[in-house]
């Protein structure tokens, strides 16, 4: 559990506890990458959404490895359980089956290389940032406590909390307006 402050040392043996943890970590990362690739390359929209769900599940695993089980559960609950399902639902309800494609077949030749270079740039920038920054290591404060999360959400991070409520309010008003318009 001291993974937060670990320095790159010699790779642990495969059949030790650390080795097994490493293999599981690689599997989660593979899940993220595979899911993302499916989401980007799939020809059918529902497959792309399924890939997105796989990617979110892998991300939850990554959060778990970053010692944040609460975030991992929330990722599953909100992104896999609500967001992907709502997207899939919208696709199934809104469009006839012939149009449920991502339009991958007739795209411009430049799209692929352009997207790749933008992605590579962002990745390189983040990598440089991550390696150059002097990270300040926060000690872990005791066992996980839901109370601490609630406390910090309502004191230190109360601005975020208020912003969330404003976003929710806007979403509700937007939904009401849309529904009203549909009725007339």
């Amino acid at each position, binding site marked *: 559990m001291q993974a937060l402050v670990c320095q790159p040392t010699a790779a642990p043996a495969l059949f030790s506890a650390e080795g097994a943890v490493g293999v599981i970590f690689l599997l989660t990362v593979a899940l993220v990458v595979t899911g993302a690739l499916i989401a980007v390359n799939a020809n*059918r929209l*529902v*497959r792309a959404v*399924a890939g997105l*769900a796989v990617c979110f599940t892998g991300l*939850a695993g990554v959060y778990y490895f970053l010692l944040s*089980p*609460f975030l991992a*559960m*929330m990722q*599953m*609950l909100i992104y*896999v*359980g*609500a967001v*992907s*399902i*709502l997207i*899939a*639902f919208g696709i*199934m*309800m809104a469009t006839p089956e012939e149009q449920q494609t991502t339009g991958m077949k007739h795209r411009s030749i430049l799209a692929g290389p352009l997207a790749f270079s933008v992605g590579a740039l962002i990745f390189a920038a983040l990598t440089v940032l991550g390696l150059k920054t002097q990270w300040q290591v926060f000690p872990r404060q005791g*066992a*996980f406590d*839901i*109370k601490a999360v609630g406390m910090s959400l309502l004191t230190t991070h109360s601005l975020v909390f208020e912003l969330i409520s404003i976003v929710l309010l806007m979403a509700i008003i937007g939904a009401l307006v849309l529904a009203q318009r549909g009725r007339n």
Partner: protein
Amino acid sequence: METSIWRALLYLVGIMAFAGLNAAYLGWCERKGAARIQRRIGPCEAGYAGLLQPLADGLKLMSKQLLVPDGVDGIIFRVAPVLAMIPAITSMVVIPFSENIGARAMELSVLLLFALASISMIAILLGGWASGNKYAVISAARSVSQNLAYEIPMLITVITVVLISGSLNLREIAIDQQGGFWHWNIFRLENGHFLTMWISFIIFFICSVAETNRAPFDMAEAESELVAGFMTEYGSMGFGLFMMGEYLNIVVGACLTATLFLGGWDCPFGKTPGVWWFLIKIYILIFTFIWIRWTYPRTQIYRLLNLSWKILIPFSLINLLITAALIKVF
């Protein structure tokens, strides 16, 4: 001992066996119960009182060809039944069967159960869509709107329990209710929680019936309207896995209800707590599921959604407010 590989293996085998036995024999219980309620005999040929029937059914399902019809989305069609089964078994990892029996006493285990439940929702959605069958797509759409609608009041009522127990850990919630039925969350005497908690219990139970897609809320699998809903195109073990997933979801729902509201493994009179009380409670709850299914006719989809959005959600919100106020006042 806590990190020993034997402990992990033992729990793995134990949970698999418990899940498999329940999935097989709840089918038998359901058929027998249905038969009694409809004044029939039910399965009686294979073995004494038809006790070998699940075995015969399993062999039959496994020996049939795994048929993948033309025009389905091959990969998703094959993955969906597996996805329906896995989360139900995985959920059993965090269920505390008794004080000393429970694979993992994880913080946030309540959240984990709901996170896993959302995966089985995806399974139904993908299975229905991949079949490429109009009935299956209608069924998937129905089932998702139903599950989304009923997840909200369910989570809100769970918050009332979490407020009272002050923990998201199922084991700690159960330990908090030890010592006789007046400590159970449903009848809790202290702080006057018994005034509102039975409402929570009723809302939670209705929601868990709806979440497991059981009659009177089995809009997803309405035989008389949609053939068999999202399972229409599935044969052999694909269908078998969906059925097992459904029964295991019932078991998990009953375990969750027993732990959150009925004191987990606690004895009603505070004498002999143990795993047997937990099993008695969950099987009474499961019997109630079967009883409800064969007693009430199916509702309609808009009534079902109205019940959730117009009645259950407002009631559960008011209930949450009152519970929080009671905790603050006393």
